[in-house]
């Protein structure tokens, strides 16, 4: 870390910076660097808490500005090989993109609404059609939003950009989603690798082409044990339940008056089968929760280590225990928040009830109760979301950069600028379809 700080352009004169860079270059092999995050938690807390209050007051309209502020903060405070990133997007662009997305989506929604009224074949399949089409749209939006964010990311005066077809990506990702589901998650590593390869193959930093070298098989071999622990018992339980139950008898029994009695007399194994299924489900849920941070660390490490831009390469050293620490911290903060919220609401509600007792207008009392209830619910939810954003999301961002080692950075002296800024439509569509992320 200290070597990197020396590389960073912090000294107060150009000469000093050059000297520092030279000494650092002598200490570490050429073209090797790290990344770090210099933003303070306090500043992010301030940004997020203020944002939550404004979200509440504007019923969500402020989200475009909050998202932009968040990204500006995260990008600007992330130094890669000594130089901070820059986010050049504006809230206005996303807002316009959102309005265009609405203009595109409304006729589609209206079309489905009318189709659903129709009693013919179209009406009957319109629900399924709408589901598939919206899922496709969602994936399309994810890809286009990625393009927006990349073209708004500037590093050392050169922007990132993305080519490729968003429709093709949407088609592939739905296909892989279906295959992953059918294979009970076994194909997940190959799905991730394939989609990531598509994305990175079409990603560029200036004229330096990106690519993804992570192998699905590698991830499968690493994660196989986790899959067995989480999914194995569930599949076994499911298999046992399916074999143990006489399905014809069960179908007969469901129509009758005494369902349980019929089932028990027809297939004596039904009790144990049901019990094993419930136990397996319980085990899988618990195991999934316990091992999720380990899984997340593993996939993140695999993903980051597979990223390449020209000759530049990344290698992640992210550890599972760092991920666990992050979630424990969230749980701690959440408990403290619950305690504080409990104490405050006791006082506020106590006071409110005392005041309302004196009021004899039923409508006012009722309105106060309804609005008070909704506001406290929203404050609680926004509070947890803010805590999650700061304790988990921000830390995750920081961790993923700070655990990475970069090589082949000599190329940074000669990457040529290329690519143009894309429209905010993808970002707006992602927002309208609720598939947006950071």
């Amino acid at each position: 870390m200290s070597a990197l700080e020396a590389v960073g352009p912090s000294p107060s004169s150009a000469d000093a910076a050059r000297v520092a860079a030279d000494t650092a270059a002598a200490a570490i092999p050429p073209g090797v660097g790290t990344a770090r995050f210099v933003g303070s938690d306090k500043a992010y807390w301030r940004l997020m808490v203020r944002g939550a209050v404004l979200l509440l007051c504007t019923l969500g309209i402020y989200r475009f500005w909050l998202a932009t502020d968040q990204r500006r903060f995260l990008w600007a405070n992330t130094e890669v090989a000594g130089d901070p990133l820059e986010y050049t997007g504006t809230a206005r662009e996303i807002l316009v993109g959102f309005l265009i997305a609405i203009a595109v989506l409304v006729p589609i929604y209206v079309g489905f609404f009318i189709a659903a009224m129709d009693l013919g074949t179209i009406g009957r399949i319109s629900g399924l059609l709408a589901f598939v089409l919206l899922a496709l749209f969602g994936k399309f939006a994810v890809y286009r939003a990625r393009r927006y964010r990349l073209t708004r990311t500037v590093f050392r005066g050169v922007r990132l950009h993305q080519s490729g077809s968003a429709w093709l990506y949407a088609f592939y990702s739905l296909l892989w989603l279906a295959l992953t589901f059918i294979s009970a998650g076994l194909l997940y590593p190959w799905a991730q690798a394939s989609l990531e390869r598509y994305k990175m193959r079409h990603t560029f930093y200036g004229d330096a082409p990106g690519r993804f070298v992570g192998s699905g098989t590698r991830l499968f071999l690493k994660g196989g044990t986790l899959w067995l622990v989480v999914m194995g018992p569930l599949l076994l339980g499911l298999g046992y339940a399916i074999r143990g139950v006489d399905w014809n008898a069960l179908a007969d029994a469901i129509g009758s008056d005494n369902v349980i009695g019929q089932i028990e007399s027809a297939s004596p194994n039904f009790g144990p089968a049901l019990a094993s299924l419930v136990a397996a489900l319980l085990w899988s849920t618990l195991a999934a929760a316990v091992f999720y941070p380990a899984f997340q660390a593993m996939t993140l490490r695999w993903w980051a280590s597979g990223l390449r831009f020209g000759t530049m390469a990344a290698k992640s050293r992210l550890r599972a225990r760092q991920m666990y620490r992050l979630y424990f911290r969230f749980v701690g903060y959440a408990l403290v928040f619950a305690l504080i919220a409990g104490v405050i609401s006791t006082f506020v509600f106590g006071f409110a009830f005392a005041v309302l007792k004196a009021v004899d207008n039923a409508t006012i009392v009722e309105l106060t109760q309804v609005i008070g209830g909704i506001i406290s619910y929203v404050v609680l939810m926004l509070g947890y979301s803010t805590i999650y954003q700061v304790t988990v999301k921000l830390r995750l961002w920081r961790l993923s950069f700070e655990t990475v080692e970069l090589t082949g950075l000599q190329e940074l002296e000669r990457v040529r600028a290329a690519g143009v800024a894309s429209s905010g439509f993808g970002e707006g569509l992602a927002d309208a379809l609720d598939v947006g992320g950071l």
Partner: protein
Amino acid sequence: MSVDYKTAMVTSGPGIFFDGLTSARHHVSVELEPATLLVRGAEGHLLTRWPYADLEHLSAPDGMLRLGRRGNALLARLEIRDSVLAAAIDELAATVDRTGTIERRSRTRVVAWSLAAVLSLILVGVFGVPAIADRLTPYVPAAVERKFGEAVDAQVRSTLDSGRSGGALVCGAAETEKEGRAALNRLVARLEAAAALSIPIELAVVRQPPANAFALPGGRVYVFEGLINKAQSADEVAAVIAHELGHVAHRDSTRSVIQAAGLSFLFGMVLGDFVGGGAVVMASKALLQTSYSREVERRADAYGIELIAKIGGDPHALGEILTRIDGSNHPGMKLLLDHPDTQDRLAAIKAAPPATGAIPLLSPTEWAALKRICTGR
């Protein structure tokens, strides 16, 4: 932006420059002239000159001033960590906003406009959506309404039918019920003739205990067995049916579908896309929808009173059956009730002129038969 004498004197300092053509990093010295800023490379040669008026202040970490050039197709960047030099540039260039004053002012404007937008959307929800629905409803073709009614009807029937045992769902088919059905048909025919609706009415009594009745799009009306049991005269049953015919005449189901769609769009898409926002959206939708619906019920009451008077029935009969039903219903939250407060409805009904000629709508035998319409299980 206050700058003391010492910093205003600074005319040069170190910086890092990216020319926007390649990602190469240049350690440069920045010289401040009265109207432009000069960027010189390590050997003293001029790399670029930027007028202060063109400077763009870009997002950067704490302790760094990052500048770009406005209207420049290249993403050339000048980064300055020297706080004294940064302060001097801030003083010279109006667009540089190191204290964030300009940013804060524009943000306050954004928040103010957003609040205005929320207010305007709420006003549209309260006044605009019902007005638009009123205007649009007459243009929905009867064929569409009928088709929609069929779809809803299938749903309603399966809901009413589930978990119920003994007898067909619709009363009046069994041998002992036929007389009751005939009496009901006579009653409905008189109401229909007086109402002169553009679509035929299909009325059915269903074997369900609650004292209730409702109309679906396309002229279907359901009356529950519980209501027939509660009624003490043919006029009371007729009054309830007349009220439902009011909904049919006003095309209230179609209107409410348009209103619900409008509200979903307004609150679901434009607003509320944040954690916990779903609750706000649902609550405001429920409040607005029930307030529309209370208005609709008031109009249906008025229509029903007029209709019952037209066929020579007792306009106050609706009030009598409402009072009887209300006693058995649980008091709920007034704001979330889709029907107006019974006291308000009763007051409006009492205000109607009383019956003029007291000819009973059904003969005593017919009335007795109607009361037995659901007994032949």
